[in-house]
């Protein structure tokens, strides 16, 4: 039983480490600020989530696990705010995204650039 839990937690650590590498590669490879936020999002969600899941498997059903779960919860509440702040400021200072612009079908949707 112990061995199974150990193996499961090692797999979680490996997935988390792989997500970290993926996110770092994305930050280097993607073309502009807005796209790089997505890569940072992988690190914020998958990497942190899987590494802490592995830690929770190691510590078993205890108060420590609950605290680790709280860390994930608060991080999931706060990390999108930082990502949004970066994107919003980039937009405010006029950095144009290298992206295809898709117009809304109904004209009532308004115009955000005005």
């Amino acid at each position, binding site marked *: 039983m112990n061995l199974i839990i150990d193996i499961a937690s090692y797999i979680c650590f490996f997935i988390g480490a792989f997500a970290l590498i993926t996110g770092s590669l994305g930050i280097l490879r993607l073309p*502009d600020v807005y796209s790089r936020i*997505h890569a940072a999002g992988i690190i914020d969600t998958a990497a942190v989530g899987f590494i802490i899941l592995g830690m929770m498997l190691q510590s078993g059903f205890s108060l420590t696990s609950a605290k680790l779960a709280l860390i994930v919860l608060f991080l999931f509440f706060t990390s999108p705010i930082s990502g949004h702040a970066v994107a919003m400021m980039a937009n405010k200072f006029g950095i144009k995204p290298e992206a295809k612009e898709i117009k809304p079908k109904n004209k009532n949707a*308004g115009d955000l650039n005005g």
Partner: protein
Amino acid sequence: MFNVNLGVVNMSHRIYLIFSENKKMEKKAIKKTRNINKLSALAYTGLMVLLWVVLSGHFTPLLLSFGALSCLFVIYMAWRGDVLMGDIKPEQFFLKVPFYWIWLALEILKSNISTGKAIWTNNFEPEIFEVKASQNSENGLANYANSITLTPGTVTVLIKGNIFLVHALTAEMGKDVRSGVMDKKITKMAL
């Protein structure tokens, strides 16, 4: 010199008196309008107690009484800050929010895989578009914007009223956001 100073002191004292009377009137007026929603107060207390128990982990009578005191103080501050009026619904944390979190976790896992694939295969075509949010409350709007940003591959760039400017990494993810599944789920939660 001395007299002038005295005059100033007297004046300020009088002003202070008038000010404090106004404050009292204001407080009475506020107390009349500040009504408390019992269900949300109960849920808020429950959340605070849960958080204290998880973070503390000690169960001696002394520490439990400290915990009760600090919980009560937080509830008092929430009441003064008009959090318990019923606009914000903490009771949803026990009813609908956990199910939404499970769904959101699966969604995050899916979009993580597709974003990772897009990064490793170098195959992405970013797009930027506007979506309309159907939530009524500010809390619901914040929740929707945060959920969009939390799923990798989509970021809320700008919020104006209930229209979001969203940046997506691939066309697939843009389609997912525009289909409005997440929007409907959050509106149903009625945060």
